[in-house]
């Protein structure tokens, strides 16, 4: 037992505490899944607040939701879905050991990710121009004027936008972290570190990216599509 484990020659990327690559790979994958579980609970706190306030202040939420740009929102959803495709194909390329294809797909993911952040920035800027950022300069007059049938109370509209900024802001922060991870992956893919035998970082980095995509898949209907029918 001891002799055979000592006899195993040093494998690229195998840490000393593991017996073999499979154990390391399984540990890394479980670790990422468990971490994503904690992330669900992190966003879960905000989803809980959202649920309760939407139940209390439906009209104010509807008015706030209508003021968001649905074209930009839908585009951003599509951008993220495209990025998820390039990630999934990237993992496949890594599995098959196609270095150039992997590099190309990782770069495409980075482009989509940054594109999402740019569009998000444009939307936030619109909110700034419309005085829809919660705080002393918040102004609900436009919401009241545009939605006379909802009889809006101006105070709780700030709750909608507080949640909007907290949720999209923390989601964007996760995107920034994701872009950082993918820069790291791109660098090592360029150096040719990933092989069909060892590509765990690409896989678990991909899991993180898909998760951030899933959060947006829920944020989109919850924030943009509350009450669009007139």
């Amino acid at each position, binding site marked *: 037992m001891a002799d055979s484990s000592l006899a195993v020659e040093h494998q690229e990327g195998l840490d000393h505490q593991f017996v073999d690559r499979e154990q390391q790979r399984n540990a890394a994958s479980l670790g990422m899944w468990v971490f994503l579980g*904690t992330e669900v609970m992190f966003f879960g*706190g905000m989803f809980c607040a959202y649920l309760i306030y939407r139940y209390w202040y439906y009209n104010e939420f509807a008015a706030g939701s209508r003021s968001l740009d649905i074209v930009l929102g839908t585009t951003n959803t599509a951008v993220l879905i495209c990025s998820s495709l390039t990630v999934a194909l990237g993992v496949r390329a890594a599995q098959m050991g196609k270095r150039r294809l992997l590099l190309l797909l990782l770069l495409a993911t980075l482009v989509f990710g940054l594109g999402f952040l740019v569009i998000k920035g444009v939307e936030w800027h619109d909110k700034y121009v419309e005085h829809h950022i919660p705080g002393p300069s918040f102004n609900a007059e436009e919401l009241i004027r545009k939605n006379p049938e909802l009889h809006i109370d101006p105070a709780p509209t*700030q709750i909608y936008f507080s949640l909007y900024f907290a949720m999209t802001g923390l989601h964007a922060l996760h995107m920034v972290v994701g872009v950082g991870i993918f820069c790291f992956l791109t660098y090592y893919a360029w150096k040719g570190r990933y092989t069909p035998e060892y590509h765990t970082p690409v896989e678990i980095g991909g899991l993180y990216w898909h998760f951030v995509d899933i959060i947006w898949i829920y944020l989109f209907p919850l924030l943009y599509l509350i009450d669009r029918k007139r």
Partner: protein
Amino acid sequence: MASTAIPVEREHYLNTDYGIRSWLFTTDHKRIALLYLVTITVFFFIGGFFALLIRLELLTPAGDLVLADTYNKLFTMHGQVMIFFFLIPSIPAVLGNFLVPMMVGAKDLAFPRINLLSWYLLVAAGIVMLHTIITGGVDSGWTFYTPFSTAFSNTKVIEAGLAIFIAGFSSILTGLNFVVTIHRMRAPGLTWSRLPLFIWAHYATSIIQLLGTPVLAITLLLVVFERAFHLGIFDPTRGGDPLLFQHLFWFYSHPAVYIMILPAMGVVAEIIPCFSRKRIFGYSAVAMSSIAIAVFGFLVWAHHMFVAGISLYSAMIFSILSYLVAVPSAIKVFNWTATMYKGSIHFDTPMLYAMGFIGLFTMGGLTGLFLAALGIDVHVTDTYFVIAHFHYIMVGGAVMGYLGGLHFWWPKISGRLYPEWLGKFAALTVFLGFNLTFFPQFILGYLGMPRRYWEYPPEFQVLNVLSTAGSTILAVGYVLPMIYFLWSMRYGKIADANPWGAAGLEWKTASPPPTDNFREIPEVSWEAYNYDEIPAPAEVPVGR
């Protein structure tokens, strides 16, 4: 290596390398455990210092030692430091870090670098917290209740909130490492039903850390956003609900009590069979009750809010659910007692702590049932009854478990024995001091003395003097072990691999263990706690 003719000391994790870098950049779980030990000891004494100031202020009915504002800051920072910087990391990060890989027969945790990172996060959080304390402190109470914390307090709420946010990351990463290690790194033959109960307890603790802490993180972050960026999620002037803050806060902070107590239960489940020389009674019941506590612990949080304005119907639901937690807790207590029944009991220092734990935890748990009962809770909410109750759990339970575990595994950690008579003396001092400090508080609370006030009516003075007197005895009981542990590192008798004759993989390797824990990865073919197969040590090891 063996080329030198001079007989060299056996190489182990403490003497493989010296120098500050070999500690600050180590990825060895045993060294990281010691880093944690030093860190949380510092915070324990800072928190204890605040506690003594609180007790000194309450020695007299008049508010005469500190200003009222200062008193508010003292109890706030006592709570925050003790809970987030001592109790939450105490057993998991020190004993768990040291023992989990050894108990599962692995060379290290699954992610050693993340383990080191989590220590650095705790240190970073600790520095932010110390900066908060030095530059003015916080007065929101450790609970950060809104709208006081968001709109009215003019102390450093943002900084303290961020400190705890960062400490939360540290806690999450520790839990993540444990879950993955327990799932993926077990030695061949070590099935789930052969795992030590310490591992089961840490598995359950990790579940709470992983699924609860993120909710606290987002809640504190929203408070910080509300103060810093004028977001209005809990702000009643904009239609927000302060009770929502309490819901989210207690969703973590109630189960957080089980983060503190479950590992202590794991320690006790190791100590009791060893010093009773018997296999644990009802192994699977004790194992499953840990998991049950982790799950039920999440169903009871609103019993902290019975008088805060939640609906009566939900209060009734939460009251009933709170009783559920008593079931697995009682299962544990009964099984430990049954283990001792007809055992060959040795009253060594760890056993004294373990037995103290059973008694104090039972009292803390039973008074918890008073508080879970809707009617009585309305009567004693926010009184010293509550203070006494949770100190019986957190100090009488968690800290007794921590000290018991530290004494039990100290020979393994340091390779030395501590002086047994001093150990016993300290254990008894802690037990007496603790009861003298906190038992009078049950009576005070029942008589109606509210918590968080710096002065009180003169008729409460006798009990308060008793409590303050007890706290000084307790302080002596806590300083003593630190002194003789430090002493024993140089002068203590050398411990052999298994001084207690204990079961468990960690006792099968040398004391202190080599860096890779085992010379070869063990293959397990026996059940846990097979004390019928292990001879008791010829003589009880007595340190000099």
